[in-house]
């Protein structure tokens, strides 16, 4: 799914009359392969069940840009909008407007608040992400030593929740010898993530591991550790794209890292959008529906809202990276 | 070889809407100093730019040493030995003196194309020395005074080993003394075999230097004469198309009570202990060498440059002047020395320029009333005899003299008592000069007190009721009209400082 696809798709929309069901998906920004894969899965799902697809993203990852796009989608009277929000709250008014006009709204990947969506398609339970990352790290450093976190921007909602759960997990007495010394922010910029990593190394000479729950951060850290020849001395783990991380998994800097399959996440979102649009489900707790190749899915509670959980994060290591790096 | 180093025939140059040159002829002999004269806007500068290849003529032919040429850029003219010192400074303020001299024909190592800085600095120093100046070749051009910059421009022309040197009003910014130095330089260049074309509005320059004079009027060629073959009157007649017999008008009004008193005004680095007074209806000439600090004193009075010590009394009352707006409120107006950079908004029409200082007269609570604005602009424009069709004509399209008249008209809209004129006739032709003198004298007779800065000795003596002479930031002498003579003034301006 890329730009040209999108526009050809849209022509169908404008010529195809109003009878076909149209599902729209809005990702955070363009030029993000993770998002492209997710949209690919979304499109695949809709093609399976029938309907038109509109795939849009602003050029910058801002809520303002997404608001513009959503307004345009409302004008086009699409049947559902699936959004990966750039801001939890800021989209609420415009998404509410969409829902008031009968458009089904669901979020995927990074949630918007409960009031602005009908359901959230959650790639993985944040608690399990936090736990998995800590478990893996502890394993790599023999339950002992200083660790640090390299996150995206200081206001990235997902990352913050994951970090919160990591901290909660660390309270478990089996981790008493592990100390989280710093949370650094690389703003999802290559250069900033690099200098933040370098600063971590300088500041904490005894550092044993870095956890980076962001694809840009983990790749930048992987590069720094590789260049400094710290493979084996400092372990790196987190959430990364297999394609970006293949080199560092193969060279041992990252013994293991995690991610879900964005294609599946997008696919699930597409199926959920379809179910909502067909009014098979209303997005309430207990609703269940058939999600194609993923089987039956059930809607569960998530804080104030509801969600569909796809599964636990998938572990990538030397044994399987070869087959995945070409995929996404 | 041809009899003429340079010959132009039937040159015509059109700008959008203007014919700047209309079938102009010109002939220059080897080793000749040839004056080019004419009113402001006659087309002299344009003519020069055609010769140097800046402008391409629309029609006409040009011969250098008998060979027909046509330049597509200034570089080609330079290569044929033509160098020019343009009317408006064309230097690089951020670059060193050496670079300014050699820009366009730097010395480079043949193989590596590396610039030969040492050689250029030495050469620059040598040329400057030969011109009797010891400006540091490494100094920034922007830090030099106008006169020093002029010297550098001449050095630049010399450094190209030019055979034809053109000077467009080189003396406009110079005092008598400095002009004298320039004459010597010009003559020595001539002796070395160069031909010089010389533009000036000063008759002294022409009589002192030129052997031949060519006159342009309204873009047209009027004629060429040997200096000895034409009388002053005929020359003026040729230039302005009418007779001007008396350049300095007679005083009409009386001198009244004291308007302004300045006591011990000082500003570190610029001027010190300035004390003088000004009366109603009086014209006070302020003269001295360029760089004496006259402009700074007057700008202090006008609130542009805060003074540090001393006091200013207006009508006996002590006042503080901190901005031009306050100065104008108190009745002081100032005509800046650089009319293009400081005096006018060239991209605007005449009318809007005239009314800019007094916009609140034509507005109600900030809203402009363009009708009354335009009427006043027309009235004032006519009062100073601006030569144009309408008040909407752009100032940039006017000649220097007419631009100056617009700048003067700006001062007349305010209710002012004191008018400070900084070099009001710089670069202005005889006709316009006499008109400006006339305006000044009329203003004085209307009761304005006038301070006139000027570097032209005859003008100061001819116009002023009293003359203050400045040297290095101090007033060295105040003279009455009767005491004044060129010698006395020069002595005061050059006087060595007394031991203190």
């Amino acid at each position, binding site marked *: 799914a*890329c*730009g040209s696809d*999108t526009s050809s798709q849209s022509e169908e*929309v*404008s010529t195809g009359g109003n009878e076909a069901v149209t599902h729209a998906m809005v990702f955070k920004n*363009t030029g993000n392969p993770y998002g492209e894969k997710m949209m690919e899965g979304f499109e695949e799902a809709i093609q399976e069940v029938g309907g038109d697809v509109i795939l*849009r993203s*602003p050029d910058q990852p*801002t*809520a303002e*840009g997404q608001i*513009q796009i959503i*307004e*345009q989608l*409302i*004008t*086009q009277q699409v049947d559902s909008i699936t959004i990966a929000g750039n*801001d*939890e*709250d*800021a989209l*609420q*008014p415009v998404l509410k407007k969409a829902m008031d006009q009968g458009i089904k709204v669901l979020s995927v990947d990074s949630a918007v608040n409960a009031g602005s969506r009908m359901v959230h398609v959650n790639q993985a339970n944040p608690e399990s992400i936090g736990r998995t990352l800590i478990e893996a790290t502890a394993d790599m450093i023999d339950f002992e030593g200083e660790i640090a976190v390299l996150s995206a921007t*200081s*206001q990235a909602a997902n990352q913050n929740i994951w970090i919160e759960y990591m901290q909660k997990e660390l309270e478990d007495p089996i981790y008493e010898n592990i100390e989280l010394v710093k949370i650094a922010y690389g703003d999802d910029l290559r250069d900033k993530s690099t200098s933040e990593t370098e600063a971590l190394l300088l500041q904490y000479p005894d550092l044993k591991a870095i956890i980076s729950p962001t694809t840009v951060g983990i790749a930048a850290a992987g590069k720094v550790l590789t260049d400094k020849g710290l493979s084996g001395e400092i372990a790196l783990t987190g959430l990364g794209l297999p394609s970006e991380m293949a080199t560092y998994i193969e060279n041992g800097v990252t013994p293991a890292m995690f991610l879900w399959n964005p294609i599946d996440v997008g696919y699930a979102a597409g199926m959920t959008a379809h179910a909502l649009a067909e009014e098979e489900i209303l997005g309430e707790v207990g609703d269940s529906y058939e999600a194609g190749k993923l089987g039956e899915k059930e809607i569960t509670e998530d804080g104030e809202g509801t969600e569909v959980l796809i599964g636990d994060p998938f572990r990538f290591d030397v044994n399987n990276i070869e087959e995945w790096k070409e995929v996404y | 070889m041809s009899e003429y180093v340079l010959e132009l025939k039937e040159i015509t140059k059109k700008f*959008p809407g203007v014919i700047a040159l209309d079938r102009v002829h010109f002939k220059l002999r080897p080793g000749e100093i040839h004056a080019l004269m004419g009113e402001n806007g006659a087309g002299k500068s344009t003519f020069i730019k055609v010769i140097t290849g800046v402008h391409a003529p629309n029609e006409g032919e040009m011969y250098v040493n008998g060979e027909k040429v046509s330049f597509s850029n200034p570089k080609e003219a330079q290569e044929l030995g033509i160098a020019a010192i343009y009317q408006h400074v064309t230097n690089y303020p951020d670059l060193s003196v050496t670079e300014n001299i050699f820009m366009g024909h730097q010395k480079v190592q043949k193989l590596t194309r590396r610039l030969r800085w040492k050689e250029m600095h030495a050469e620059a120093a040598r040329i400057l020395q030969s011109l009797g100046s010891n400006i540091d070749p490494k100094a920034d051009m922007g830090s030099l005074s106008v006169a020093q910059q002029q010297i550098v421009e001449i050095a630049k022309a010399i450094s190209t080993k030019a055979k034809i040197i053109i000077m467009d009003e080189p003396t406009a910014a110079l005092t008598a003394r400095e002009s004298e130095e320039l004459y010597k330089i010009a003559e020595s260049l001539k002796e070395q075999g160069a031909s010089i074309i010389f533009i000036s509005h000063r008759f002294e320059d022409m009589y002192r230097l030129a052997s031949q004079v060519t006159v342009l009027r309204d873009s047209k060629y009027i004629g060429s004469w040997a200096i000895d073959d034409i009388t002053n009157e005929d020359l003026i007649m040729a230039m302005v198309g*009418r*007779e*001007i*017999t*008396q*350049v300095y008008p007679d005083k009409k009004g009386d001198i009244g009570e004291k308007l302004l008193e300045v006591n011990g005004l000082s500003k570190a680095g610029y001027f010190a202990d300035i004390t003088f007074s000004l009366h109603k209806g009086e014209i006070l000439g302020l003269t001295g060498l360029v760089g004496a600090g006259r402009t700074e004193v007057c700008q202090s009075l006008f609130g*542009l440059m805060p003074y540090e010590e001393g006091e200013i009394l207006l009508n006996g009352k002590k006042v503080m002047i901190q901005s*031009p*707006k306050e*100065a*104008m409120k108190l009745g002081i107006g*100032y005509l800046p020395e650089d009319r293009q950079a400081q005096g*006018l*908004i*060239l*991209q605007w029409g005449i*009318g809007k320029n005239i009314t*800019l200082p007094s*916009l*609140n007269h034509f*507005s109600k609570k*900030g*809203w402009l009333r363009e009708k009354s604005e*335009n*009427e006043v*602009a*027309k009235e004032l424009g*006519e009062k100073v005899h601006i030569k*144009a*069709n*309408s008040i*909407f004509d752009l100032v940039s399209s006017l000649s220097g003299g007419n631009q100056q008249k617009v700048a003067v008209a700006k001062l007349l809209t305010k209710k002012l008592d004191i008018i400070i004129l900084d070099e009001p006739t710089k670069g202005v032709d005889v006709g316009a000069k*006499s008109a400006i003198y*006339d305006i000044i004298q009329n203003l004085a007779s209307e009761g304005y007190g006038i301070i006139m800065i000027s570097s032209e000795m005859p003008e100061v003596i001819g116009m002023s009721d009293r003359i203050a002479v400045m040297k290095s930031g101090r007033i060295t002498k105040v003279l009455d009209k009767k005491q004044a003579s060129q010698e006395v003034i020069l002595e005061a301006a050059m006087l060595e400082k007394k031991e203190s």
Partner: protein
Amino acid sequence: MVKHHEYVQRTLEHKQAFSLKKFFFQWEWVLILVFLIVLMINSNLSPYFLSINGLKDATMIFLDKAFIVFPMVMIMILRDIDISVGSTVALSSVVMATVYNSLGVPMEVAIVICIFVGALCGFINGLLIVKFKELSAVIVTLGTMILYRGIAYVILEDQASGNFPEWFSFFGWGNIGGIPFILILFIIFAIAFTLLLHKTTFGRQIYAMGNNDTASRFSGVQVDKVKIIVFTLAGIMAAITAIFLASRMGSTRPNVANMYELDVITMVALGGISTAGGKGRMLGAIIAVFIIGYLQYGLGLINISSQSMLIIIGALLLIAVAIPKVNLYHTFERLKEKRKARTRNK
């Protein structure tokens, strides 16, 4: 005896003759033409475009930053530029949300504080620019751009702040008599700023300074004061943008309005205001706001990808500024002359 009085007394025309040709060879006509073309193409491409609701909603989307266009026109006429406006939007909205949520200040007061913060940001820009004349406005506002947003981060850290009262959403979403409130306010400001720039002494002084700052100072224009006022206005309008933005999003964060300055500058430049100063009119910029707004909206309706949108906007800007390089009027005259010459030669 005294001959120098024999001047030909000239009269100066003081009523501007109306020239139909000049009137029609104005940049604004080109813009209007472009605008109509944009409307036409859009309505052909998308059946949704010409719906009244669509057009109305579209103005709601793109007008928020357009408020900054007005003072930016003045700033660019002054030959300056202000690249800190986006940060000012962020800071003033963050302060508004914080005083409302953390200090319990009533929303009405918070709005006033927001405008005050914007004004203060603009005032500081103006003050630094006039006090440090050696530095250009780009330099100063580049510094404050980073500083203001930095302060917004210090205040709100990683939080969003919202929970505004119900009525606050009226700014971003409300209609009066079926017309979006934001559009009404935009029109009011458009008229006010147009009059201010073209019909008052203040506006005249802005043009004077843009053409020749020194000459203006020598003519008694209080250049420092004018400049500070204009930059303060920019701050105030940024604060107004902040209110609309916060209202539309129901909350705010330190990273809102990122790069708004570039969008605003694009609109102003398309409106025919040259960054070389002294030229251009308010009307042009106002039309440009609608051109870019509706173009983006229309392209969005046919789901053009945002990368193609970037290319199209860039190209439009280039073409738009390239056209007047060939001075319309003069080109026309020159062409006529050439044609005449050719017929003469034949």
